[in-house]
């Protein structure tokens, strides 16, 4: 649920990385943290257990000040993947504006992906949200592992589905920014259509995307255009 404070000239969006346990949600955030220009992102807050698995959530804000003088902030959350943390996942999902569903590309994880998606839809419903109406992109992570679903298979399911699909190797930072760019664009368009953000706040889609996705000059990555755009 985007929060807009016209008085304070602030707008805050909430993005949640969801997916089965160990699919790489935290790794996505870590990669973004590393790749992004430190002036547009805050600290990566990790609330994890002793075994390095997410207990509550990870949180990293990205933000900029628009030309129209609005403070725009996007908070990136990860939901804990382990089955036991169901209530935490629901709390993290509260009022989400967009979701990156991080799926594990390994064939053996197909079932876990499906279960997690159903769990997400259920939890969204509990929060009064509808998975069909929310901007959601799917990231097939761990493309570098053996026995993963082939590129052709993924392209095929991407063509058939409603959700934009991205491929990634989050550990190496590949595809991570493209995924985020895809979701931010999708989210902006959805919110703009619903609440008329552009006209009310005088922020254009391109300003929103390019201001948020400023890469760190030291990240050693070419200044690449944001990946596949959302429909």
């Amino acid at each position, binding site marked *: 649920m985007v929060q*807009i404070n016209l008085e304070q000239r602030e707008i805050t969006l909430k993005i949640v990385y969801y997916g089965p346990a160990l699919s790489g949600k935290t790794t996505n955030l870590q990669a973004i943290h590393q790749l992004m220009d430190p002036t547009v992102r805050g600290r990566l807050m990790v609330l994890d257990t002793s075994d390095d698995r997410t207990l509550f959530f990870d949180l990293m804000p990205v933000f900029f000040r628009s030309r129209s003088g609005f*403070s725009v902030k996007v908070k990136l959350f990860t939901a804990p993947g382990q089955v036991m943390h169901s*209530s*935490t996942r629901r709390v993290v999902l509260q009022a989400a504006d967009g979701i990156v569903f991080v799926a594990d590309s390994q064939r053996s994880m197909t079932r876990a992906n499906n279960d997690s998606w159903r769990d997400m839809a259920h939890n969204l419903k509990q929060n009064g949200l509808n998975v069909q109406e929310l901007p959601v992109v799917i990231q097939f992570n761990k493309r570098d592992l053996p026995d993963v679903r082939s590129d052709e298979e993924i392209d095929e399911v991407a063509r058939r589905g409603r959700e934009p699909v991205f491929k990634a190797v989050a550990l190496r930072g590949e595809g991570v920014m493209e995924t985020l760019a895809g979701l931010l664009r999708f989210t902006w368009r959805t919110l703009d259509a619903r609440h008329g953000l552009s006209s009310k706040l005088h922020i254009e889609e391109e300003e929103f995307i390019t201001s948020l996705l400023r890469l760190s000059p030291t990240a050693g990555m070419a200044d690449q255009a944001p990946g596949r755009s959302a429909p």
Partner: protein
Amino acid sequence: MNPFPAAGGRDLSSALQRNFSLSELLDVAVFREVCDSYADLFQIGFRILDRAGEKLIDTKGESADYCAYLFNFPAGKSRCTAEVTALRQMDLPGAQPLVHDCFTGLRYLVMPILYEGDLMGRILYGPYLPAEGRPLALSSEAMGEKFNPDIAARLLLRVRRVPQAAAQKVVRHLAQVIEVMVHTGYKQALTSRMHVEAVSASYNELQDKNRVLQESFERLKELDRLKSSFLATVSHELRTPLTSVIGYSEMLLEGLAGALSPEQTDYVRTIMEKGENLLSLITSILDFSKVESGNLRLNLSNCNLGEIVRAAVTTVLPMARKQSVEVVVRVGENLPSLVADGDKIRQVLVNLLGNAIKFNRKGGRVELELVNARLPRRQPTGADGLPEALAQTEEPVVLVTVRDTGIGIPQDKLHRVFDSFYQVDGSSTREYGGTGLGLAIAKSFVEAHGGTIQVESEVGKGSVFRFVLPVERPTQG
């Protein structure tokens, strides 16, 4: 939902999106100590204001006496207040300290406290004397008649002179320290918030599940009650015509309708016997369904145990004779008279003796023994119960033992023999007949009297059933 909340309205849609104020994120007491040390170290005082302009920290530096002296004069007071208001309201667009010179020529640095791009508050650093500049000489014309420029000059000497670059560096460091503290506080606030939210979400979830469980439990209980009451009605409806069948057969046998041929007599006797079997079966079911539906009522009266035993043994004796089983009865001396439901106690004895005979071998033996005994019993202790010293009591009981030399019950089946409709061997139903209700009924009758029943057995050797009946009726708690 409307994402444009009314001014001041709090949006509760996400527990994790809330904005915290500086004083919520910092442990102000600890933070004050840090700031005091910082001021001591550099001999420059500073103030920290939160987003709303409220003063959180106010440390004294070497300029304090000078400023206090000027503040004594109305002109000084009003000009100083105006300066502070200006500092409070100064627009802070970037992340860098801004310079503000006050009317005395002393200098302030105003540093924004930013967290995640949000302005959380500001540091008013100073005043100090810029090493590059010189203080303005204040005159008594400007300050008032009593103003003494000499005192002012002497106090001014104590104000720390600092090069601009050094002051900027110090204030930037201070801002960094605060940012780290804010981050830690924010993390802590989110964690505890999350804890609370997760616990309350789990709690709600459990509440929902409990409600569903409770509902289905109530439904099951109701179904069970309906089942039992149906059973009771049906048994009753079955018994009534059966009594007529038996009665008319009896009349035929007695020749009330004329003499019967030997063959006819034989047939009618069979009808009567089977009718009686059926009747006792139905009676068991009726008893049991009463127990199940919670309609079991005890007709309490003073009972003579000897008479009850005699009646029970008389009932089973024909069956024992048929099976060539010997029934031995030992009744102890001085048995008390019990306040009990005599019919129910007799029924328990009949059921136990009946089983002991039914599952015996030909030429076997059944012993029934009644003795006085004392049963140790532990009463509840603790806040609502008795003190430990009084909790152990002994209760006078009548111990009834039924011992047989029959087929026995395997150890793994022992715990189930009191279950309703349970028979140890499915096939034994065919061989020995019965409903599998006898022991279940016996158990509920004994327990209704405040007693307990137990069984021991050895396969091939026989079984021992023991039950106790309290002599004193338990006090209702």
